[in-house]
């Protein structure tokens, strides 16, 4: 109950959000360069918007997205074995960021990947079952 700012009620509690497991989309092709940077192959959108854009702009069938070092590290760790919190800890330790800075950065990055359907977040349920979100 803050003094003057109203908190928006999140769908997940902070604890649950920290506990989610980011998982790479298994249908997405990717590889690592010699420098350790990840290149993701993003196929063209297949929905009507994609078809319309293809008709107008004729984009290539596959677009390559190159991740920087931090992005590559997060992508690497998004294997369903590491929780969001663990990824934040690794990024914070490796890049000497405060926990909050790392948390904000990793969350924004995962949100972007989620929007592009390159990653999903598995939410651990209390019964021990996983539920995939995003």
């Amino acid at each position: 109950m803050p003094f003057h700012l109203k908190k928006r009620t999140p769908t997940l509690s902070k604890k649950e959000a920290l506990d989610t497991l980011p998982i790479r989309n298994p249908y997405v092709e990717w590889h690592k360069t010699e420098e350790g940077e990840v290149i993701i192959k993003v196929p063209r959108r297949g929905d009507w918007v994609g078809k319309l854009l293809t008709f107008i702009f004729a984009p290539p069938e596959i677009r390559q997205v190159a991740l920087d070092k931090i992005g590559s590290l997060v992508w690497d760790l998004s294997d369903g074995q590491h929780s969001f919190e663990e990824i934040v800890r690794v990024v914070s330790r490796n890049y000497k960021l405060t926990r909050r800075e790392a948390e904000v950065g990793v969350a924004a990055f995962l949100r972007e990947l989620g929007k592009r359907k390159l990653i999903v977040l598995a939410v651990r349920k209390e019964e021990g079952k996983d539920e995939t979100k995003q």
Partner: protein
Amino acid sequence: MAQLRKLTTIGWRGITVEVPEDWSVAAIGGEEHPEYIRIDDPYGNSYVEIKWWSNPRPTLILEDALDNFLTRIQKEARKKKIPLNLKKRKAPPYLERGDRETLVFSWRSDRKGIGRVWHCKTCGKIVMAQVAGVNIPPLAGHILSTIEDHSSTGKNVWALFQFYMELPEDFKLVEQKLMSGFLQLSFRGQRKFRLKVERYSIAERFLAGGNFKDWARAEFSKRARGFSLSFYEEAFREHPALGAKGKRRVVGALPLLGEFAHLFAWHCREEDKIFLLEMKGKKDIISIEEVRENIRCHST
């Protein structure tokens, strides 16, 4: 036995508080009417909020400020249909300080909170602080007791996200950018003196494989267009550093007469962070050496 936790100082607009090291600033607001800061624990279980009036209206009474806040809590609880238990009283003698008139309060609904409201007789501020959340941490009392509303050294502490700087009180914050990996505080001193302090985390991302001094040189030239800059190199705390000074090249209008720019940057390799200071003004209100000496870049 109580667990020993490392504490860190958070300082903002003349207020300082000590919180566990893994807590961090989550919200900042107010800008004098009143000012506000919230610091969260990493799991969203508890937080500390401080709200303060730097120049309270003479009619603002401590009891009224607290009642106003408690009324809002009551309203919220009524809206949520949750029973609320509220308590307020004068601070017991062991919590009283000579320069403060204090009230203490606590509340319990779906969350809990304990707090204090006081009027500082030295600086005139009215401060309202509470530690609240699903759980109240065992350190709550200690956190509240570490809040200082004025400095005894004439310098304000600006500390957040592991950044720590002390600056004379007459420098007023005019703008801030608090982003993941980048922090910028812009101050204004007397006689329109401007000071910018910036910290870039993950320096290698900004240097993009290049040399720090080349980066700094390009950055200085961009920031001081219209100034005739002369660059100087020096090591600062054994870090590579670059400085530049200069006066305005073309005097277009009289008010700019004599305006100078002084920039200084260093690359703290231990923390992989770049610190950049930018000063512009007509008169040297503070030296760049004094500013940089009061910034902590890595723990020694």
